[in-house]
């Protein structure tokens, strides 16, 4: 099944829940009408939270840059000794 269909199905289920809540008045009407708005805002906040957390916990590896420089030196030595031109552009 195409992914968009899965999402559409989910939207339909949520819409169905919302309409049934409107119909049965379990929750006061005024709140129920605004539920989709609350949902979208919550989703947005969750997204921003995930971005923020991810940014704070973004894995970095400064030591790798040092190791890479060592590897580059080693590589250049070997390659020059075998006649490969290692001049940069």
């Amino acid at each position, binding site marked *: 099944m*195409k*992914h*968009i269909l*899965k*999402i559409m199905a989910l939207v339909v289920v949520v819409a169905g829940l919302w309409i049934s809540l409107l119909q049965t008045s379990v929750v006061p009407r005024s709140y129920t009408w605004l539920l989709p708005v609350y949902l979208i805002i919550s989703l947005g906040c969750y*997204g921003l939270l*995930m*971005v923020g957390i*991810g*940014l704070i916990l*973004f*894995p*970095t*590896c*400064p030591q*790798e*840059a040092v190791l*890479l*420089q060592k*590897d*580059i030196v*080693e*590589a*250049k030595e*070997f*390659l020059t000794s*075998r*006649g*490969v*031109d*290692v*001049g*940069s*552009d």
Partner: protein
Amino acid sequence: MAKLEEIETEEHQKAIIISKRKRTKKKYSIIIPTYNERLNIALVIYLVFKHLQDIDFEVVIVDDGSPDGTQDIIKQLQNVYGDDLILLRARPKKLGLGTAYYHGLKHASGDFIIIMDADLSHHPKYLPNFIRKQMETGASIVTGTRYVRNGGVHGWNLVRKLTSRGANVLAQTLLWPGVSDLTGSFRLYERTAFEDVVSSCVSKGYVFQMEMIVRASRKGYHIEAVPITFVDRVYGSSKLGGSEIVEYLKGLFYLLFTT
């Protein structure tokens, strides 16, 4: 009579062992697209050969007519390492990343296809990790991920990290791909899986990488991940342009509706 039978059985047993060894020893084809990577490609090749000592492999370099003499360097490397292990399969001009992999695939003879970049952002020291992971889990695809604890990135400023993280969250929310690093291009594929997925991908550039992994995920392929570190390119100019965000969003919605 008895002696002849003994010899025949011994030969037969030897033949079985040799054919078993041939079947279990897998070959890995590493496809590296290049454009103006004169210095980087030499360094990458050295590191690949350094880290893959006991592995049967070949490197297929797909160069898109680099004007800086990349192909001359590759020929020098062939003199050092052998032109049976370094295959130069060039193209006349820049024809795109996806087609470069497809072109490389046609000239590859391995059971597994590994794709990686030529600019040293993908360090060949992780190649054994990919291979080991695949052997341990029997996965069809092993993808390198920069976004887990033992992985990481170096050389990205805050804006770059923000766009990366934002793009990732958006893609995860919309696509539910089951993979943490969608745009990564350091991956190992079983040859059959690669052939199957690449034929149904039409995107360009890094959206191609996303399309590959999302389509593979939808088709139910077993995908594993290994942490990799990504040091932003040391030499040369990055080919990341300005309209990347628009391209990315277009790609995302294309994948949303067609996978």
